[in-house]
């Protein structure tokens, strides 16, 4: 940066990723094969397979984004990597969302916690 003819160090440090996202995505085929083998996944036809592969790639990107937002955990390929978040919610979760505590619900006694 040149200020009044004087060259100074740029106070803004450029930060770039050491790994290239595209390079990581190159071996997606291999990762999907490993995923299918590990979780014994089979699909009824090629169209279904291709669709699941697209979902898998999207989930891998999602996992990478989540890794940045949840750095103390490890996010990546799981048994749910070939289902969309909507399918995941519909097929694997089952808590009724309308829950409200009834008025007569018994409250647990307050316990001492100081000792």
């Amino acid at each position, binding site marked *: 940066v040149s200020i009044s003819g004087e060259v100074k160090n740029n106070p803004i440090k450029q930060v770039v990723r050491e790994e290239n996202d595209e390079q990581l995505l190159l071996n997606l085929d291999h990762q999907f094969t490993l995923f299918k083998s590990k979780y014994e996944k089979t699909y009824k036809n090629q169209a279904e397979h291709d669709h699941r592969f697209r979902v898998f790639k999207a989930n891998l990107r999602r996992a990478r984004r989540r890794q940045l937002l949840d750095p103390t*955990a490890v996010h990546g*390929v799981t*048994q749910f990597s070939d289902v969309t978040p909507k399918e995941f919610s519909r097929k694997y979760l089952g*808590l*009724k969302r309308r*829950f409200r505590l009834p008025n007569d619900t018994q409250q*647990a006694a307050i*316990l001492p916690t100081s000792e």
Partner: protein
Amino acid sequence: LPTDFDWREHGAVTPVKNQGLCGSCWSFSATGALEGAHFLATKELVSLSEQQLIDCDHTCDPQDAKSCDSGCRGGLMNNAFEYTLKTGGLMKEQDYPYTGRDRSVCKFDKTMIAAKVSNFSVVSADEDQIAANLVQNGPLAIAINALWMQTYIGGVSCPYVCSKNQDHGVLLVGFGSAGYAPLRLEDKPYWIIKNSWGSMWGEKGYYKICRGSQNICGVDTMVSTVAAVHTTPQ
């Protein structure tokens, strides 16, 4: 309160189960809590039947007729406790095994009841109270927002943003003071949660989520403790 506590080390937790392609998490959360309470009452660890709840429990929330336990289409742990209290108890897993399918005929046999509920209650949203109730009364049935669990592999999950709308029923079995997070070399206090997606998911079927983070993912909002009838082991 101890800084670390884990009911698995005290023999109150059955092996991780797998709900399969069925929205029956609520039944696994409820049976897990009763398995722990039954252990505390009898010193006997018995795996209890989720399928009984799926087939036979259609209890509705007293204030919301649309919130009824309905097998793979969802349910509530407190409704399940209410059903178990009224019907007399739950059978063993081996006597009423899990199929992961609903709309089957109820095959509950009163003569084969293995565990009975004496009472249940909801725990204050205060994290110290949750920890105290866990230590005193056994594993707790809790609800959580499971969005981040789809991609979870291990470590202590502590997302910067997580909705408090709960959509998944799980079992709180313990807590720790310093969970090692391999990516950031960071320690965090955490809850230990038993899930029902098999042992290949997460940390051998378990999930760690940070404590002291203002009800992260709604973990503090819907916490239930159950007590079992004291019976002599047969």
